[in-house]
């Protein structure tokens, strides 16, 4: 396999690192995002740096109808697979009283993933090969008081992917869910209480590795698996007294 790689949310910190990861491996890229200027810069950079083809398309994760027309048999010709890294952290406290805030958090993190994966899965299923990968989050593993709106959207992604993976097993299309911990991006820069922050390069390397190995679920960096296993196992009478 040496086909084209689709990256949705390509101008995000992780998205850009993924573009570099595959650009360096001389893969053609199709970059999607909502910031035209940032897309053009990333594409120009990949073309100059790696000598690869890089196409761009505008895509706003709040537009649920767009993926249907973006991802067709024709447009996905020569595509190996797609990596979705659109995300919106949102403000959990604001979501208590602001409809637009929680709605946006759910739309960008969950509904847009469904909107993209539906046409992508249909094409790849017909073709009987390829991969799909979604960057979710350790926040989706257990709902915590500080971040449960974002967490619930990411948790919903997990369940959706579990089902999609089941469905596409026969079609030999791999479905990978990547759960990063704290990553050094614009989303987290300047937030209090961060620890063990990983670089986007490290996360992108882990993502490419998980896709190549056709893994179902992977944590990046790896040690988050241990941390989340403990958090998941905490009995409620302990968990509820924590500030997590």
């Amino acid at each position, binding site marked *: 396999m040496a086909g084209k790689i689709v990256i949705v949310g390509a101008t995000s*910190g992780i998205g850009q690192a993924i573009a570099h990861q595959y650009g360096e491996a001389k893969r053609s890229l199709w970059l999607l995002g909502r*910031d035209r*200027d*940032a897309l053009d*810069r*990333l594409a*120009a*950079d990949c073309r*100059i*740096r790696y000598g690869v083809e890089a196409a761009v398309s505008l895509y706003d994760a709040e537009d649920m109808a767009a993926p249907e027309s973006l991802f067709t048999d024709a447009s996905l010709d020569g595509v190996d697979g797609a990596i979705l890294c659109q995300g919106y952290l949102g403000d959990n406290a604001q979501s208590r009283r602001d409809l637009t805030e929680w709605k946006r958090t759910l739309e960008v993190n969950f509904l847009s993933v469904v909107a993209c994966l539906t046409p992508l899965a249909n094409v790849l299923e017909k073709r009987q090969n390829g991969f799909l990968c979604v960057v979710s989050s350790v926040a989706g593993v257990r709902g915590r008081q500080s971040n449960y709106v974002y967490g619930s959207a990411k948790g919903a992604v997990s369940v959706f992917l579990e089902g999609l993976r089941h469905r596409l097993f026969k079609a030999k299309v791999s479905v990978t869910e990547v759960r990063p911990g704290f990553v050094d991006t*614009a989303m987290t*820069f*300047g*937030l209090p209480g961060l620890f063990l922050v990983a670089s986007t390069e490290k996360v992108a390397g882990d993502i490419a590795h998980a896709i190549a190995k056709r893994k179902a679920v992977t944590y990046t960096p790896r040690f988050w698996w241990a941390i989340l296993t403990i958090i998941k196992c905490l009995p409620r009478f302990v968990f509820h007294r924590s500030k997590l």
Partner: protein
Amino acid sequence: MRSITKTISGWGLYPQESCHLFRPERERELKEIVAQEPKFLVPRGLGRAYADAALNADQGVVLQDRFSHFLAFDPKTGILECEGGVSFEDILETFVPRGFFLGVSPGTKFVTVGGAIAADIHGKNHDRDGSMGNFVEHFHLMTADGGQTKCSRTENADLFWATIGGMGLTGIITRAAIRLKPIPSSRLNVYFEKTKGLDETLERFTAMEGRYPFTVCWMDMLATGSRLGRSVLMQGDFAAVSDLHGDPAPLALRLPKKINLPFTLPEATLNALSVKLFNTFIYTKYPHQKTKLLTIDQYFYPLDVMNHWNRGYGKRGFIQYQAVWPFASSKEALKKTVQEIQKAGANACLNVLKPMGPQGEGWLSFPLAGHTLAIDIPFRGDKTTRLVKRLNDLALDYGGRVYLAKDAFLSPEGFRRMYPNWEKFLKLKAKIDPKGKFSSSLSRRINLENR
């Protein structure tokens, strides 16, 4: 825009100051910070300025590392257009294999294009090719109101020359077009020779003038009397493919394995004995009147091999002192400077001596025709401060100047005498930045301000 409050320093680890760090990723975010943030701002690339040029005590520092995209490249002209945060390391990795090298490179590849322009950096080829400014076609500058101005030799020329060497005080370079130079291979023929004293060192510079495009020299800082100034000269030129003995990849960038200095060494590591051993070792290690084939990294960036080499000087860090003196007085100034450092028992060893060519057009540009010496001096409190201030006075006495990207102790009076264009600079700054939005710990220390 969120910021992080953090104590940071330049590469010399002195001074250390608490600053508010901003890290925009898009031009519109940068614009928002510049136009709305009430704090003073200074841009910061990879933090290789040694002292306080990219520090802003209790004020804002705008990190440029996310502006690291190449935007256009024309292989016919070698002109690369890129964002200001692109590193020289990235440029080398991408363009050396295509047969291009930087027009000017400092002794580290961990600098950004924006920082290189702001300090108007020079390299081992200054006497022949001049400084960074000579290789800049144009750039876009975000000024205090958040707007962008395209500057070149023909468009907004005043702002162009004020920004080249302007230490980030005119605004933020968002994109720049720089000219790369074609090279036949990624290896250099380097001619080594040793001299017995300062007279011979400077005579050899003159005798070898024009023979090699790159010249650098290490001086034994402990030699005294007639041996004072004994040196190892290393002059290089890119090798022709025929010199590479049939190497199948003449342009491959052969990167060295990197090592890491994981912790700060105790200050006692550098003592009279270890420094003496080091100096003697270097002087004896190098060959005499021999040519060796070296990689780009071996010749240009020997210290880059070790991550965090600056930790070798102990937790109080070091001063990299660099001055340039005109040819007429440079021999005397060099002798006095070295003697002053020896008298202070400063345990200095790493140093670079080079001839420089004529002054460029950057208003606050450092280089001038003469000899320049850069030397690491471990920082050991007041006695180091006093020593460096004495050296600054010496530089003034001999008509020299010190490099703002490295200086830590220059006074406002000293600065104005060394950089006669200061008044012209401040006049322009009053026009484009009337509220003095772009200000740094350096600019306030040397009073390069309209306040």
